[in-house]
C-alpha cells in the first residue's frame, strides 16, 4: 500500500532522532528490532538524558522543542562519554 505522508514523516523523524542519539548519547544500534525487550525503550531513556542535558522538559518523546534543539548546528563530539 502507498505509505501515508504522515507515516513517512514520522519514520524520517524517528530515523533522525535515532541517529542523533547514536552520535551524541551513545544509543546502541538495535540489531534485533524484531525482538521486543522488557525494559524501558532505550531510545526513550536516551531521549530523556538528552532533554535533561539541554534543560528541556524531560518527556522521553521527540516533542517540538526537542526536535528544534536536535536540528541546531553543533559540535561533533558526543555530550556523554562513549
Amino acid at each position: 500500500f502507498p505509505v501515508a505522508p504522515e507515516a513517512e514523516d514520522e519514520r524520517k523523524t524517528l530515523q533522525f532522532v535515532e541517529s542523533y542519539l547514536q552520535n551524541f548519547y551513545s544509543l546502541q544500534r538495535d540489531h534485533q528490532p524484531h525482538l521486543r525487550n522488557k525494559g524501558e525503550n532505550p531510545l526513550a531513556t536516551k531521549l530523556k538524558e538528552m532533554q535533561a542535558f539541554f534543560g528541556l522538559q524531560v518527556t522521553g518523546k521527540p516533542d517540538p522543542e526537542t526536535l528544534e534543539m536536535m536540528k541546531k548546528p553543533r559540535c561533533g563530539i558526543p555530550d556523554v562519554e562513549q
Partner: protein
Amino acid sequence: YVITTGNPKWKKNNLTYRILNYTPKMRRADVDAAIRKAFSVWSNVTPLTFQKVEDKEADIMLSFAYRDHYDNSPFDGPNGQLAHAFQPGEGIGGDVHFDEEEAWTKDGRGYNLFIVTAHELGHSLGLSHSNDPGALMYPTYSYTDPKEFLLPQDDIDGIQAIYGRSNAAVQPTGPITPQACDPNLTFDAITTLRGEIIFFKGRYMLRRHPERIETEINFISLFWPTLPSGIQAAYENVERDEVLLFKEDKYWVLNGYNIVPGYPKQIYHLGFPKTVKRVNAAYNDETTGKTYFFTADRYWRYDEKKKSMDHGYPRKIVSHFGKKIRVDAAFQENGYVYLFHGKTQFQFDPHAKQIVREMESISWFRC
C-alpha cells in the same frame, strides 16, 4: 563545566599548533587570525602558551576535511556537525577537524571560524560539553561578535581546574549565564514582542512564552547578530508591530525578529536634547498611544501619532508614578505598567494613577 573522563591533559604548558590546510571560503590571513585568536581565548586564562609551527608535527593539528576522513567520525555535509576534536594525547590527540562543507566566515554569516575553533580547542585541552547554555563548551553553535567575545566563567573554571590559573597579575573573570530563578537577577530592559515577554540581561535574552513552561535563555546575537549586547531600554509599539531597542545614544527598530534597515539612529531623532546620553527604560501605553521614556529620575512622554515629544517634559518620576525610583526596565501588560528597579518591580495602575503592588523582579518566571 565537565572535564573529559580520565582527566586527559597535556603534560607541558608550551604547546604547538599547525594549520594543515585552508578552506577556500576565507582568506588565508583571516583563517590564521581566527585560529590565533581562538588559542588566545585559552592562553589568556591559563599558564598555557601556543606557538604556530610550519612543516613539522605539532601537538595540535588543525585541518578542514570532507565526509569520511578516516578517523571513524565522518562529517555530514552542510550544517549538522560543524567540527570535532580529540582529547589531549600523542598522534591524533588534540587535533581539530573542521567540516569543509560548512560556510566558514569571520563574521556573523554562516559559521564563525573563531567561535567554532575556540570551542573545539576546549576539547583539545581536555574539556567535554557543558550544559551551561552560555558556556563556550555548550554543544550547539551560537554566534557572538568576536570583538565582543569574553570567555564565560563556566569555561574559565573548567580549564583552570585542569591547568591552573593564569600567570597574569589580575585574574581574568567572565560573564555568568543568568538563571531565571536567581532571586538576585536584575534586568537591563524588558519588552513585549508579539505576545512574548523578552527580558534583556547582558549578552542574553530570557524569553517568556505564554504557553511554554520553561523560560528560554538565548544570546541576543542568536536572533540579531548585528545588535550589541547590553540593551538598555526597549518597548513594543503594538499598533505598528515594531519593537524599539535602545543602547547609549542609539536605537534600533525591529519588525518581528528582523531589524528594520536604516537603523541605528540617534535618540535625538525622537526629540531628546543632547544632554540626554542614554535611555534607561521605556514602555508604550497602547490605549493612549503615548510612549514613556525614563532617564535618571525623570520621564518623558512621546506621542507616537505626532511622532514628537509632548511639551512640558521631562517630569519627575515620583510626580506621576508615586515612587522616587530610577527605573531599570518597564513594560505594559493587560493594562498595568510594570516598573523594574533592581530586584523589585512595581505594578502601576495608569487609571488609578498609583502603584497597586510590589513584587520580585523574577516573578514572571514560573520558579
